């Protein structure tokens, strides 16, 4: 990653993420096939809902015969964290047109959000429409293609987990977290370390009684509030 902000750089910066999209997209395709989703249904789910976790929830809840309203509500709880990620990115595009803002928001994911936060540390806090749009489109295409391929190949791929591809996104978040901690000078290192520890404890304890669908959102909000409180009171 460097300070280049054109379309090409967006594609290049997103490449590591794409392995993860392929791994998890394939897994979604395979699960959807075994739950009776046709190839077209799997592809449209990837293109329209476009949220990894939400798509797995949809397949399992439809299969379990859950009521329509509870499926939509579960997905809403799961997607609510995107309000936070979009709020964090949006101020950088205030000067772009409304249409461009809507285009970027429509395809923003956890992964392209995280890439964006990392990119900011290389570009002196500038972003461009072309760069994020390239990242979003690359991610979207890889996800749709992998979901379709997984559904079509369904029975041929016995165990996609064997290849460890699903770990690409976890490894990438580890890398992005590290780059964030060393790159973001607006928060002191000790405070960033404390936030990470707080999130670790909250995630562990939260898993005992918070449904996994809203865990990330709840943990993130509490950790941000603690961070704010500490910075304001200790003048860190």
């Amino acid at each position, binding site marked *: 990653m460097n300070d280049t902000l054109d379309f090409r750089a967006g594609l290049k910066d997103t490449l590591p993420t794409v392995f993860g999209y392929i791994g998890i997209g394939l897994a979604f395709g395979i699960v959807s096939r075994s739950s009776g989703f046709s190839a077209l249904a799997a592809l449209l789910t990837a293109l329209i809902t476009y949220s990894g976790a939400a798509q797995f929830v949809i397949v399992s809840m439809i299969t379990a015969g859950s009521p329509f309203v509870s499926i939509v509500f579960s997905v809403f709880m799961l997607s609510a964290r995107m309000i936070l990620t979009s709020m964090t990115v949006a101020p950088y595009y205030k000067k772009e047109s409304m249409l461009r803002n809507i285009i970027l928001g429509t395809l923003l994911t956890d992964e392209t959000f995280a890439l964006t936060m990392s990119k900011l540390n290389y570009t002196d806090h500038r972003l461009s429409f072309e760069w994020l749009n390239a990242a979003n489109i690359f991610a979207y295409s890889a996800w749709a293609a992998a979901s379709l391929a997984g559904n079509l190949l369904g029975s041929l791929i016995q165990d996609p987990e064997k290849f*460890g591809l699903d770990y690409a996104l976890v490894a990438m978040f580890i*890398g992005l977290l590290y780059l964030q901690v060393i790159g973001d000078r607006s928060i002191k290192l000790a405070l960033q370390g404390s936030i990470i520890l707080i999130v670790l404890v909250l995630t562990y304890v939260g898993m005992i009684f918070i449904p996994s669908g809203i865990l990330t959102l709840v943990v993130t909000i509490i950790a941000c509030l603690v961070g704010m409180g500490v910075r304001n009171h200790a003048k860190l």
Partner: protein
Amino acid sequence: MPSFSYIMLVVVSTGFVTWLCRVTPFFLLKRFTMPKWMLDFLSFVPVAIMSALVFNNMFIPHIGHLPGMNWPNILAAVPSVLAAVLTRSLLVIAIVGVLTLAVIRALM
């Protein structure tokens, strides 16, 4: 077997809800400026959400009980962190993580 039209009803409804979560902040913040406390709050979102997404994958939740440890994922995190510190390249980090986990799963 779920019918195609029911799947589409669910997909379009959940897609709309997800789209609203993604786009509304862009829509509103184009028009309004956030107060300082909100910007202050949001400055912690990257580090908090990235750690949450990492740690989610290190444990296995059992509602009502202590979470289990996802040992393969935890072990694969060690070389991934090393790769991060040594190379700072996301591509290298992703490849190291994937290969390590593939080896761990092959041995288990």
